[in-house]
């Protein structure tokens, strides 16, 4: 009997404890956020035990405990899959969440409902754990929908603001479009394979997996904000910054990629879907990187860079390297969460100022945040021997050496170079140069809650990539040998991006204002996508539902065909046929005459 599964269950149970105590008096306590944070940290430490065991022995487990129901030939039970992906991702997610919770104790301290905020964060974490560890599609779907709804609640946290509400609704809508794909995949698996259990799906063979895989790709597109369904991610920045750090960088948005990684055994030999994934990812990574170039809102830039990295993960799945995509998920979680927290620190210090044009010179007043932001950005761009390098460099190398669509590869390389460009832009405008913020603001970052949480992720951003990639063997082997120039491509394009951006940023100073070019407009208006899709589609569909569904069909046609026409024809025919013309006097007169006549006749009868 080893401790593998029991430790894992303990870690998951610990997470539910603060939810249970929320019905007791403890929930009214000021210390509730602290309990939640501590529970998360304990869960992280306990979950490290099975992860260490996994790293040591490589054993994978399936826990199957509560039989829910058996519907004819299909058995549904609660079961957890503790394999390579979940065993690595659970501690990473718990670690990141732990730091983010500590950060939100600082960021949200003046919020009157901070306890509820922590409960929501924890509920989100639990649903994410359910998603990651699920062994059957139904349980996966519970987690999948759960994170969607929790993101709705968390984005709409400041529910008095219209923007927050629309952003929350947008997130649910785009996710829901993805869910249709998920449901379709579920239906297909049920129909053709008669099971929702993952390992049973993988061992059964079918010649054509196109349809369910398309469904899963749609689901991943919605959840991971790929091209077509991407606008919700930048809009979601209306939520509090800890929410952006947790949901929209490290956990929820990678769920789509995670799903494709989970179902990779089916995708392995399916060229069509792989090509689709590759092209989708490439388009996403380029478009969102272009959008990130001209944004002025610091959170929006980071959000677009998240979207771009998600596109990169999709590209990786498209070139048949799920292991690398997964590695990128794990490493990305550290530095992207930290970037969000740094921007949160800046925003909070500058009295909720998010515009990078109004920052500047922060390296003097916020030295620690500046350091972390720079390290995070460097890790994001794939600076050698920082965390991002270990996954990103490998991804670009495998893309370079794989036998694949040259356009997609080229687009990805351009996006990689743009990553450096927009990272430079944040650093240049927010951190360097002269201060452009109001001199009256008192800036102080010396709060242990802030420093410790960022510090923990900072260490992660420097070392996690090395530790993870060093201790775990890849499941699919990346390309080992390649020519020098291919080996150096990733680094070269990144450095190119850096230098270009720096030069461009320097030239912006002291030049006169030019009327923005069309390229600039394309980027700053997010490729005109929201302008078209968020105006045209809702307008047409709402007009159709008003004019044709509601007015024409329901109020006019259906009303006229049945009830109105029946009553009309009844009325017409009754007036036509009946000899009643409403001549009351005449009728009564004739009535009276008959009465009198009959009385007379009866009286004088005999």
């Amino acid at each position, binding site marked *: 009997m080893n401790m593998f599964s029991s430790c894992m269950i303990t870690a998951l149970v610990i997470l539910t404890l603060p939810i249970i105590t929320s019905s007791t008096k403890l929930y009214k306590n000021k210390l509730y956020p602290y309990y939640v944070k501590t529970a998360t940290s304990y869960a992280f430490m306990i979950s490290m035990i099975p992860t260490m065991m996994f790293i040591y022995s490589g054993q994978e487990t399936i826990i199957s405990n509560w039989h829910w129901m058996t519907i*004819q030939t299909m058995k549904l039970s609660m079961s957890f899959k503790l394999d390579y992906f979940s065993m690595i991702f659970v501690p990473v997610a718990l670690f990141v969440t732990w730091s983010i919770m500590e950060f939100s104790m600082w960021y949200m301290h003046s919020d009157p409902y901070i306890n509820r905020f922590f409960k929501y964060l924890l509920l989100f974490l639990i649903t994410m754990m359910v998603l990651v560890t699920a062994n059957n599609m139904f349980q996966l*779907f519970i987690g999948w929908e*759960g994170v969607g709804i929790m993101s709705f609640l968390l984005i709409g946290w400041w529910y008095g603001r219209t923007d927050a*509400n629309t952003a929350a609704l947008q997130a649910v*809508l785009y996710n829901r479009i993805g869910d249709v794909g998920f449901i379709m995949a579920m239906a297909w698996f049920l129909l053709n394979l008669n099971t929702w259990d993952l390992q049973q799906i993988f061992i059964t063979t079918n010649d054509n997996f196109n349809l369910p895989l398309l469904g899963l790709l749609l689901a991943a597109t919605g959840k991971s904000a790929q091209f077509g369904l991407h606008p919700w991610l930048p809009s979601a920045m209306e939520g509090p910054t800890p929410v952006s750090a947790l949901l929209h960088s490290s956990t929820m948005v990678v769920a789509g990629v995670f799903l494709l990684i989970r179902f990779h055994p089916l995708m392995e030999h399916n060229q069509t879907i792989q090509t689709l994934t590759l092209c989708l990812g490439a388009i996403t990574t380029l478009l969102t990187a272009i959008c990130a170039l001209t944004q002025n809102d610091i959170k929006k830039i980071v959000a677009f860079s998240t979207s771009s990295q998600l596109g990169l993960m999709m590209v990786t799945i498209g070139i048949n390297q799920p292991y690398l995509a997964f590695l990128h998920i794990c490493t990305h979680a550290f530095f992207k969460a930290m970037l969000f927290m740094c921007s949160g620190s800046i925003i909070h210090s500058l009295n909720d100022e998010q515009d990078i044009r109004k920052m500047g010179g922060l390296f003097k007043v916020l030295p620690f945040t500046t350091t972390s932001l720079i390290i995070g950005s460097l890790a994001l761009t794939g600076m050698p021997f920082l965390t991002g390098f270990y996954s990103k460099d490998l991804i670009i190398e495998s893309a370079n050496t794989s036998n694949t669509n040259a356009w997609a590869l080229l687009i990805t390389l351009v996006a990689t170079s743009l990553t450096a460009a927009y990272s430079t832009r944040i650093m240049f405008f927010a951190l360097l140069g002269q201060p452009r913020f109001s001199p009256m603001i008192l800036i102080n970052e010396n709060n242990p809650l802030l420093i410790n949480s960022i510090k923990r992720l900072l260490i992660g951003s420097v070392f996690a990539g090395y530790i993870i990639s060093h201790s775990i063997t890849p499941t699919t082997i990346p390309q080992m040998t390649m020519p020098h120039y291919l080996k150096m491509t990733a680094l070269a394009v990144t450095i190119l991006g850096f230098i270009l951006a720096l030069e461009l940023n320097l030239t912006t100073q002291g030049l006169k204002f030019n009327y923005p070019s069309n390229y600039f407009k394309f980027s700053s208006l997010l490729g005109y996508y929201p302008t078209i899709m968020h105006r045209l589609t809702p307008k047409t569909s709402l007009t159709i539902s008003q004019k044709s*569904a509601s007015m024409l069909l329901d109020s006019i046609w259906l009303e006229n065909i049945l009830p109105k026409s029946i009553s009309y024809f009844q009325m017409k025919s009754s007036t036509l046929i009946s000899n009643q013309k409403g001549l009351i006097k005449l009728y009564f007169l004739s009535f009276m005459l008959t009465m009198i006549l009959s009385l007379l006749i009866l009286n004088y009868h005999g």
Partner: protein
Amino acid sequence: MLKIIIPTIMLIPLTWMSKPNMIWINTTTYGLLISLISLSYLNQPNDNTLNSSLMFFSDSLSAPLLALTTWLLPLMLMASQHHLSKEPLTRKKLYISMLILLQLFLIMTFTASELIFFYILFEATLIPTLIIITRWGNQTERLNAGLYFLFYTLMGSLPLLVALLYIHNFMGSLNFLMIQYWIQPLPNSWSNIFLWLACMMAFMVKMPLYGLHLWLPKAHVEAPIAGSMVLAAVLLKLGGYGMMRITTLLNPLTNFMAYPFMMLSLWGMIMTSSICLRQTDLKSLIAYSSVSHMALVIVAVLIQTPWSYMGATALMIAHGLTSSMLFCLANSNYERIHSRTMILARGLQTLLPLMAAWWLLASLTNLALPPTINLIGELFVVMSSFSWSNITIILMGINIIITALYSLYMLITTQRGKYSHHIKNIKPSFTRENALMTLHLLPLLLLSLNPKIILGPIY
């Protein structure tokens, strides 16, 4: 079955003899006790049915609906207290008696073992409902609504009577339990097509099928709260129940007769849910959402596979509880704002946070969040329609998206945003209302722990 029917009848003298301040609490308590008895029928030890007598039986299809009916009476009583607080005592008692009478008819409808008996009771339920709508509705339009309600359902169900007489003539019996063994496949002829239509239209109107649904939004909007609750929760389910019972008689005609109705429901489901997107009237929105959900049930029943039957049964129960809860919430808004217009009730979360939690949970169950039984119902229906034809997933998918949209639109409009000034001094939410919502939500949540008791006979 008498152990439910007799206590239900005895509720009427209880109402009339109770002291004025005890009428609500007495009837509610006893109603809850009766619903506890009905829970025992959920345990179906035999494979087929529990026969109580020659006239009554219950099987795993009718038992959940029976439990839902008896569960709903105390909830209706709790919900209408405020609505009737200004009425004189006799009228209150009359109102309660009407609700009890309706419950009585419904219990007997769901447990009748004879088709003609079922038909009579099916029609009898119209009377108390009509009285409730036209007597206690809030506006003058209630008379129009009552007219629509009565005529649509009567016109639909009169051919059924003729069809039943005909079936009795050539089969010799109308007993549910017997005819399923005696039934011969119907040959394909014009007269049999009309027989099929006559049998199904009564229930299609009741469900309602898209195109024949006009009575439903009117009746829902104009009815008092208890009327809306029982209409949405139980009366619509009579249609689904009847269809599932009578399709056994109509094979194999259903295989091809189903097509126009399937198309109509699939189309109507999208149409009605997109109407929801444009509703400003809260009750009308919930009513149209009922039509769209019931279209799923019609599709499931017409597909006639074990999975689709399970889905239909689960969806009926889930929708019964959810829509009834939504009507209660709408009513609690109405009692405070005195308007059904959603925009006037915006920003209520700031003022009534606990109510906002109920709103959230009700909207989430309405959009079928896993693992609620709403999801189980919808998922099974989607699965069976996918296996019937892969293309239906497009329509189902659009409906899933729109359902989520209007549920959250309703939630955001009424609860989120800044509150307006005219609602500053509204009453806080009462314990009665919170208990009401809890009693709706509790079965929903508990059933998702063990959904197999509401999955119907095929399970």
